[in-house]
């Protein structure tokens, strides 16, 4: 098991008290697996992803545990995490466009990072970086450039290379395609796949609100709603037969290519997600769910209703009560690990 998250809850401090942005989230990601973490803004996906790497001062972990490669990840201990960052867990941030400091050349930046990690043989690592740059079609003179000399797409890709330079076990990629045009999106998506295939990263958590990218890149997808995990399944299963009402509505509201507006109107999901400052009791999707009934006033647990398919919904659990896999959280079917490059 590469990454195992158990009951993780993360809250933001505010003057009105702590706001729990992510509540009791559990999932596992196997070695070599790319898991998509999807949801709307405010669903908690970014919070979870970032918490695994860097909990800044505004956030605090209020419960749960994380293990990577069998060892506990001390996410609340900033000092202990420092050496693990970039080496064991790494992040491609949502703000990748402005993540590279403008007054230092890329190469110098990397050197300073390597020094911080007490890497002695820096030349070897830099040579590796040049190889990887070439791999994705960037020239190695990128290292002698400043960040503002690069286009948006280049910056995104350079950030990905930088974050994966030391072959971390877990890479959290936060909205890596959101700011890009479609063809660059594809390039970045393929880059993630390539890096995983070559073993530059073991597991990837790709956070996005764009399900279409995940359909191309992710092995499995986890859907979050209002701070909780709603559904988790292999990509094909989720896209073709989603079980959670929210996921179903989400997929139904995606426009289909070739569909004309006089054939069908774009359906959304009426209503809005609940405020997390004072969340309602029970299932948080209840108010917008067409299938809500009495039991929904209690929080549904994340249950494995089919092998490898977890859903947090009373209706679904009831319907699939007889099927194998009863409410335990199990890892998904193992994804074959490709040869190391």
């Amino acid at each position, binding site marked *: 098991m590469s990454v195992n998250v158990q009951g993780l809850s993360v809250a933001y*401090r505010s*003057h009105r008290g702590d706001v729990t942005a992510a509540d009791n989230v559990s999932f596992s990601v196997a070695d070599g697996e790319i898991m998509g973490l999807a949801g709307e803004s405010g669903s908690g996906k970014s919070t979870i992803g970032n918490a695994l790497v860097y909990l800044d*001062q*505004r956030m605090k972990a209020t419960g749960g545990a994380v293990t990577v490669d069998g060892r506990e990840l001390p996410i609340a201990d900033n000092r202990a995490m420092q050496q693990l960052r970039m080496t064991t867990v790494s992040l491609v941030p949502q703000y990748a466009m402005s993540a590279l400091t403008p007054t230092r050349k890329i190469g110098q930046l990397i050197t300073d990072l390597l020094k911080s990690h007490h890497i002695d043989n820096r030349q070897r690592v830099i040579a590796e970086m040049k190889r990887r740059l070439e791999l994705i079609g960037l020239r190695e003179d990128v290292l002698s450039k400043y960040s503002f000399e690069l286009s948006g797409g280049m910056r995104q890709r350079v950030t990905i290379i930088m974050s994966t330079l030391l072959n971390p076990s877990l890479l959290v990629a936060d909205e890596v395609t959101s700011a890009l045009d479609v063809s660059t999106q594809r390039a970045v998506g393929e880059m993630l796949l390539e890096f995983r295939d070559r073993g530059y990263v073991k597991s990837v958590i790709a956070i996005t609100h764009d399900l279409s990218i995940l359909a191309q890149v992710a092995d499995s997808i986890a859907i979050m709603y209002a701070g909780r995990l709603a559904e988790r399944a292999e990509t094909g299963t989720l896209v073709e037969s989603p079980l959670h009402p929210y996921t179903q509505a989400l997929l139904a509201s995606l426009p289909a290519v070739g569909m004309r507006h006089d054939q069908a109107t774009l359906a959304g999901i009426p209503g809005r997600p609940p405020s997390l400052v004072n969340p309602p009791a029970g299932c948080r999707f209840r108010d917008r769910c067409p299938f809500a009934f009495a039991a929904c006033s209690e929080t549904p647990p994340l249950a494995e209703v089919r092998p490898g398919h977890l859903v947090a919904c009373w209706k679904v659990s009831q319907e699939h009560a007889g099927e194998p896999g009863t409410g335990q959280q199990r890892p998904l079917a193992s994804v074959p690990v490709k040869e190391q490059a």
Partner: protein
Amino acid sequence: MSESVSDAPQVPRPGAIPAVAPEVAAVGLPGGPGPVSAVPGRRRSDFAYYGLRNKKLVFGLSLELLLVLFAIIGPMIAKYPPREITGFPVQHPGTRFWLGTDMLGEDLFSQLANGLRESYLVGVLGAGSAALVGMTLGFIAGWRGGILDEALQLLTNIIVMIPSLVLLVVIGSYMSAKSVLFEGVFIGLTTWPWVARAVRAQTFSLRGREFVDLAKLSGKRPLSIIVSEIAPNMASYLFLVVILLFGSSMLLAASYDFLGLGPTNVVSLGWTMNQAQANAALIYHWWWWFIPPGAVLTAMVAALLVANVGLDEVFNPKLREQ
């Protein structure tokens, strides 16, 4: 893009940019307007909540109000007019003369109280005229862009480079008429570029925002858009700029008066200090002559600066210390 040394970085960052107004330089330009709140009511209560809890704002505002009160009441409770020769020269501060008297026997408490009034007056005039000119030109330049904008930038760059005090001295020493009005307006005319620059940058960045496009689409005329869409978003920011300008004007006026160029028919803090120095108060250890005026002026400006920072923190959540 921050392209040159004598342009401040184009879009002000929270509390970060130095030199908004000359004399109170590096306290820095306040941060840009915060995000437009979707819930106006929430914003107001947020402001009240944070405002009252912000120590800097409370402290600065209270101190400033106290001083303003003193400026209003002080001259009324002073026993003697400031320039009346009482026949008791060089008195230590005591029960009769609360701050003592100068070499001619004039009551220094009265001079202080009246001087405070003059300082506030000059501050208002200076900040007011600078704000008027600066905001007008800044709005125009930021809104229209193009040649007008380039011309304004050039103009502000040039004026900024000429030292305000020296310019004031050259003009003032030539003029025979000296009045507070002149002083205030001329100070404003040497400091308006700071306002114009800041306003221009803000207008520029706001003009590309969505709500402005919406207003344009609905057919509003430019002036009406400026007034109803842009200005309110900049209001907090403009307010901060004007506060800094106010303090800056007071300091500049004090230096100007100290050089003997200020109006001589009224008493000002700078003038008092000038008199003290000219009459060798330093040598004779008449400390009560020159220490109170400057100390009070320092308090006036410091309170403004602190309140300004506090206000900036209230308007910009990013600056609040966790």
